[in-house]
């Protein structure tokens, strides 16, 4: 399978009633890269994640993972192939302990480990995301930042080939953002390919090898962080967003 990208999105379209959420989205993600996915609110970023991870089936186009067409597969089959994700709105298994949450990721994800092995893996992953002390507490007792790290730990425990991160930095303070960015870098060093949605621009631009930009469901730009930041189409897309305009002005 050398030479072919780990993940290929081929002309993927998804419609919700009258809303065209995704239209002919097309890009490749080579093995080992961190690809940033940006775009204004409602651009279709999370919808694209849902189409990749099997939560939605796209109406047109194909999602090819490791050379295999996984379009329309059930989420659990996609997960078994080696994909793991975090959610923008955290989805912890609240009445289970932090340890059990992470073990579940290992038991049912890519490698489908036994309970004993899963426990060992969870105990490796928890210190990595800084949740070792909360191991035996119920997931509902965590704060939002910790729940985000729990989502990440759960996804990592599956030992995925491809990790989809949906706004893991949102709602974190600057110190927490720096810590999380460092964690993401270390994950990549372990050989995991990453597709990341992020609104915290400076962090995303910092960590990504390449960035693709969605606007109204269409891919409008693709390139290195620098190329994308200076792309007139991207600036235009974001000028619709008053906050982003301010941010751009502030930088000049």
């Amino acid at each position, binding site marked *: 399978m050398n030479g072919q990208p780990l993940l290929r999105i081929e002309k993927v379209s998804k419609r919700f009633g009258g809303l065209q959420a995704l239209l002919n989205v097309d890009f490749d993600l080579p093995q080992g890269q961190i690809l940033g996915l940006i775009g204004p609110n409602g651009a279709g970023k999370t919808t694209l994640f849902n189409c990749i991870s099997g939560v939605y089936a796209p109406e047109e186009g194909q999602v090819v993972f490791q050379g295999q067409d996984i379009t329309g597969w059930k989420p659990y089959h996609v997960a078994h192939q080696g994909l793991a994700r975090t959610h923008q709105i955290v989805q912890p298994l609240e009445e289970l302990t932090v340890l059990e949450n992470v073990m579940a990721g290992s038991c049912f994800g890519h490698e489908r480990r036994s309970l004993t092995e*899963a426990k060992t893996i969870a105990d490796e992953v928890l210190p990595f995301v800084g949740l070792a002390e909360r191991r035996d507490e119920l997931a509902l007792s965590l704060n939002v930042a910790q729940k985000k790290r729990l989502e990440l730990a759960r996804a990592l425990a599956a030992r995925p080939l491809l990790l989809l991160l949906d706004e893991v930095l949102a709602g974190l303070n600057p110190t927490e953002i720096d810590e999380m960015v460092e964690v993401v870098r270390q994950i990549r060093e372990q050989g995991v390919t990453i597709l990341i949605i992020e609104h915290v621009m400076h962090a995303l631009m910092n960590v990504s090898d390449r960035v693709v930009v969605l606007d109204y469901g269409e891919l409008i730009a693709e390139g290195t962080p620098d190329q994308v930041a200076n792309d007139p189409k991207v600036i235009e897309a974001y000028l619709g967003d008053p906050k982003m305009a301010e941010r751009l002005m502030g930088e000049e």
Partner: protein
Amino acid sequence: MKQLRNPGLWLALAITAAFGLWPALAGNKAYARETTFTILRAVAFASSLNILLGYTGYVSFGHIVFYGLGGYVGFYLMDVHGVHLALAVLAGGLSAALLAFLLGTAILRLRGAYFALATIGVNEAMRAFIKNFDPFGGPIGMTLNFQVYNDYGGANQALWTAYITTALLTLVVVLVSYLVKTSRFGLGLMAIRENEDAAEVMGVNAPSAKTWAYVLSAVFPGMIGVLFFFKNGNVEPGDAFVLHQSIESIVMVMLGGQGTVLGPVLGAAVYQRLRGILLVSTLFKNIQLVVAGVLLLVIVLFVPAGVVGWLRARFPRLRRVLV
């Protein structure tokens, strides 16, 4: 098997065994046997239901359908074809499992209240079907020829055989409940209970896990049904598919603590005792179900985790013993 060394498992088994041994020690043995039989039946039923309700988070209002169907199938085999009780019990369990498998594939796609409603419909449909199904005796049901008991050493001996089998079976149910809870399969079920969408994204094959949980929760009620109606000597639609027994089982699970192994054991025993007391009291004998309703309401409002769940949350040190 490291998980078998958990003191909580042995506590639950010891309590169940203590119920089972009670008639051997009691003064009036036959009376104690009949009382304990209903308690054991309730424990087995509640522990089975707990696999679906407590671990998987799916409320089944019509779980009694498995008890009724299993009972009917086993009874039919004994009555018409002269099959031995042991085989009839297995056949009752298998037919309940098969029904659960078919139903699970169809209605476990529904979530929450829709699933609960569908289970009521299934029970009512099954009762109507059996009522009109002539091989099973239609509305009159079937009555065992007294001669059948001779194969088991006479009626009295047969009652004890049925009782002992029920006691052993109840121990098996408690053990299975514990093994499910502490297994990888059980972790998957609890992930579904907490958040089915997230569980699927994590890789839990929810449709398959839910169906097997449903099947597992149906097998033992089916087997107990055969034993009960064998002991009873007759079976009819009105006795086999009693919807309010389903609901009382939910009360037992909720009272003891849904999602725990010990909870349904205690909940069933306490509720069944309470029911026995109410049934002979002049004030409550006609309205004992009202007490069940009020009890359920109080639990849901104030102690949704049930007694064992509350104790676990309140005294974390007890968690090792109260699984």
